[in-house]
């Protein structure tokens, strides 16, 4: 949560974001990069819609037999010479990972890009225990330098522009020649590469997430565009994979199916540049690979979602398409949400992870426009689940009093058609009078939220029902 923003202060965070032109300019790029990329990729693949059905079905099937597939996965990892650890929550996961690092005598760990380590707060935990985590994905590296958190699940530094990155590099890479040109993204990349190369070689442990866990083979799979993930997991002596339990799929074939959706939905690429399978530690005769291979399987609230109205959310493959297409995200960016995962998927997931009380606003800050669901490769009914959270809020009386009162008053009227007719007749007449010949009102009592930004078109005068009755119609 960048700058300590929380979900509880969402409106304030959003206000600050809307007053931050460089941020707005940076997130505006999502349209011509990620959104149009996805559109082109989906249009170019005739079976894209059928693939979405297939992807959904694979995940739904796996979730229905999750225990079975997780146990099968564990057996295969162990057969291949690896270790599997089960973590009930974030604290568990951190403790397990620290323990492995300490036993390996680690001082420095490299990390591949992973949202799950953000979810458990691994970096801060390792640092507090004397171990230096180094992010190796360019975007993650940039926000680590800036002391921020990712503002997007696949483009963690999407909120930063290249001038800001250049300034950060000059600040932190103190041996950098001041005359060195850092005007282009490629020169920035080269600079980061140079610094990271040395860190890769000196790391004792490499930590990655996983896009998939394959039950059939015990493999973990990551997809990246920079190859940093490969160096993270091949060079150090120990490789730790932290993955949540819903990442498992039955077979390699299933990975292939979902892979066809993942990059297309995320960036519009047919495939990410690197797709890496890890199965156990290095075997005799392998040219490279770690000596020890650990998989930490994290629950952190997920098993409680099974069988609930939020189970469908566990199909999520973290492609970010829902985020890219969300009009709210596109207005305020990711940090305003004050949660690890932003956008529609984040607003559905976060209350499960941190509790509904701490997540006020998230489910409500949506127009329910449905574009997220329409692009989600896993066909997750995100708006429906946002509405479920609103229902839970209402049931538990967490809905703000004013809104509750307004709703009750309106309900009372709407259930009494005659009274409703009278009230609306008076209201429409009054507003029309107030507007006079203007046709639109610049200010209306009790409607400040509307008229702060836009006029309120005036009613025509009589309500439809009165005009209809006047014509003697039924």
């Amino acid at each position, binding site marked *: 949560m960048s700058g300590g923003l929380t979900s509880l202060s969402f*409106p304030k965070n*959003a206000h600050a974001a*809307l007053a931050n032109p460089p941020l707005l300019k940076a997130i505006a790029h999502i349209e011509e990069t990620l959104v149009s990329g996805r559109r082109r990729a989906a249009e170019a693949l005739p079976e894209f819609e059928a693939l979405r059905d297939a992807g959904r079905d694979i995940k739904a099937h796996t979730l229905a037999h999750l225990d079975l597939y997780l146990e099968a996965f564990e057996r295969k990892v162990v057969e291949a010479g690896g270790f599997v650890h089960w973590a009930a929550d974030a604290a568990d996961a951190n403790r397990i990972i620290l323990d492995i690092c300490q036993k390996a005598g680690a001082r420095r760990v490299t990390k591949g890009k992973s949202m799950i380590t953000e979810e458990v707060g691994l970096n801060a935990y390792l640092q507090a225990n004397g171990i230096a985590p180094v992010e190796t994905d360019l975007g993650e590296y940039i926000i680590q330098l800036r002391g921020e958190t990712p503002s997007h699940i696949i483009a963690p530094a999407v909120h930063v522009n290249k001038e800001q990155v250049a300034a950060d590099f000059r600040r932190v890479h103190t041996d950098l020649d001041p005359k060195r040109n850092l005007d282009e993204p490629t020169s920035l990349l080269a600079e980061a590469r140079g610094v990271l190369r040395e860190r890769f070689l000196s790391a004792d442990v490499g930590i990655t997430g996983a896009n998939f866990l394959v039950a059939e083979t015990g493999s973990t799979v990551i997809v990246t565009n920079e190859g940093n993930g490969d160096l993270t997991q091949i060079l150090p002596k120990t490789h730790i994979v932290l993955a949540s339990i819903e990442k498992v799929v039955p077979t390699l074939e299933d990975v292939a199916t979902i892979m066809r959706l993942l990059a297309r939905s995320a960036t519009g690429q047919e495939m990410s540049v690197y797709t890496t399978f890890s199965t156990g530690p290095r075997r005799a005769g392998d040219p490279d690979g770690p000596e020890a291979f650990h998989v930490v399987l994290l629950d952190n609230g997920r098993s409680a979602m099974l069988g609930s109205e939020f189970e469908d959310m566990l199909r999520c493959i973290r492609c970010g398409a829902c985020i890219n297409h969300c*009009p*709210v995200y596109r*207005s305020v960016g990711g940090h305003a949400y004050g949660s690890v995962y932003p956008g529609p998927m984040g607003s559905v997931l976060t209350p499960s992870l941190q509790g509904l009380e701490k997540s006020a606003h998230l489910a*409500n*800050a*949506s*127009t*329910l*426009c*449905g*574009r997220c*669901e329409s692009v989600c490769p896993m066909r997750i009914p995100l708006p429906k689940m946002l*509405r479920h959270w*609103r*229902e*839970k*809020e*209402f*049931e538990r009386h967490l*809905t703000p009093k004013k*809104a509750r009162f307004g*709703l*009750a008053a*309106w*309900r009372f*009227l*709407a*259930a009494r*058609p005659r009274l*409703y007719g009278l009230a*609306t007749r008076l*209201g*429409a007449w009054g507003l029309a009078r107030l507007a006079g010949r*203007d*046709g*639109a009102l*610049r200010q209306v009592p009790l*409607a400040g*939220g*509307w008229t702060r*930004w*836009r*006029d*309120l*078109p*005036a*009613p*025509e005068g*009589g*309500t*439809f*029902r009165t*005009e*209809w*009755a006047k014509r003697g*119609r*039924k």
Partner: protein
Amino acid sequence: MTTPKPRVALFVTCLVDFFRPTVGFSAVKLLEDAGCEVSVPAGQTCCGQPAYNSGDRAGARALAEQVIALFEGFDQVVVPSGSCAGMIKTHYPDLFSGEPNWRLRAEALADKTHELTSFLVDVLGVAPLPVTFEGTATYHDSCSGLRELGVKDQPRRLLSAVDGLTIKEMHDPEACCGFGGAFCVKYDEISNAIVDRKVADVRTTGAELLLAGDLGCLLNIAGKLKREGSSVEVRHVAEVLAGMTNGPAIGETRK
């Protein structure tokens, strides 16, 4: 032997009833021209969507029961709003998941409820009487109509038959306008940022008229255009199709 006229009930919607009766009368005209016998059951108020989207399931159910009882006796139910039609068609059955009796009634009503332009094109398959409207318009796809009901080509097909009218598409006609019911006042600043982008997209088309099939979006977009002092007019698609465009456009000065 002539087939009897279909008995169609119009669900006016609370916004049309309150803000823009012209849309209701336009819908009636279009339906009658298409050979329907139109009724407007007295006692209708709101479909219950505000309660449903605020998490108040019981409140939504109470209003849904009221609507079901009032409308189930008709052959077809037509709604000049994708949002309210979507509420009845896709969400009413969900509201009664634990009550088989009500659920059956909800499903029966859902089956015969239609958004106006979809009813004219997909169900009746008739062309409206010829009308003329000189000018260039752009069409905003309202979210619920588009994504819950698949309303996209129907209004464009009907508009393409209007004499003198040219349609110029926005870069992203399917982008939300930021209305979102209570969202637009609860998160007004974000809502404003979203409608800002919509209005900018409208402007780049150079169209002098913006059309849509949902009054919520229309009030929002019109309100923003007026505040900016724009001369772009805003109307419900039914008004143009029915040729009922003599009165002022939404939010426009009365003559």
